[in-house]
């Protein structure tokens, strides 16, 4: 291959990955609705404490560099709500739970309603503002 076409190809490949990066960032803020067949999440996870407005469950692993930052953002977010509880579940060795809830990447955040039922799911380093809107909607539903 000639140097010129090789250089163009390298730049083209980098450009494609840049596009992938933009799309991935966008996908992380996409809400996934709970599927009707979703298992009873709170029970499955054995959550002892549920928020009377909502509960956020963050799934992390030890190899996830975005998870600690997500955790800090969610702590700050849930601190602004009175009846919202945050749980973090480490899936590094708990592959059965990852399988049961079909979690493929971390951080994944589940939003549970006041009854502990799955309301929404966000996969990836989600913008906390999307989750804030989720909590506000659940709070307003109670009023």
């Amino acid at each position, binding site marked *: 291959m000639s140097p010129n076409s090789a250089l163009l190809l390298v730049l083209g490949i980098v450009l494609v990955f840049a596009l992938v990066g933009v799309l991935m960032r966008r996908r992380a803020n996409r809400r996934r609705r709970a599927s009707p067949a979703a298992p009873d999440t709170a029970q499955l996870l054995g959550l002892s404490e549920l928020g009377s407005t909502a509960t956020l469950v963050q799934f992390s692993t030890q190899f996830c560099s975005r998870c600690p930052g997500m955790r800090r953002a969610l702590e700050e977010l849930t601190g602004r709500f009175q009846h919202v509880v945050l749980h973090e579940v480490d899936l*590094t060795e708990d592959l059965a739970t990852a399988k049961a809830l079909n979690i*493929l990447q*971390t951080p994944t955040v589940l939003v549970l309603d006041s009854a502990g039922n799955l309301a929404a799911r966000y996969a990836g380093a989600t913008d906390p503002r999307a989750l804030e809107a989720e909590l506000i909607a659940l709070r307003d539903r109670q009023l």
Partner: protein
Amino acid sequence: MNATGPEQASDEQARIDPRGPRFTAWITSALLGVGLFLALLDGQGAASGLGERASQPGFVLLAGAGLLFVWGFTAPSTAPWGLLFRQVVRPRLSPPRDVEDPRPPRFAQLIGFTVVTIGLALHLLGVPWALVVASAAALGAAFLNAAFGFCLGCQIYLGLARAGLIRPRGGLA
């Protein structure tokens, strides 16, 4: 990869400035970009013998990148780009907002090494385009990490572990 609990990690392992791995990822991207360029120049099946394939510039450069990956996951505190960051770059930056767990970037180095090594091995066996595909994949991961904060451990750890390719304790299956 020894898996320990997150609480233990903060005590046992020194936390790192997250900008260090991003800096490393930029240099790695440049290196892999040059490697990909050279692999493309070498082209497909031009070299016939094993010795000839092993001395092509693309192979030599990517073998070097592979060794740097090994350094990165076996002894990250002495790995050259990390050292360069701590000695030269970090003193010129403001203190980090957060310090982070060193395990995710080590995991990424291990995966980078695996991908590059597969490419190098297949190339030696005479598989056409093996080096090009492997270096493009590794370049993609490094570039996404540098530019977007993409993290391999976030994206593929659970998939690999659920597929049984990685055991949570005891490293690669």
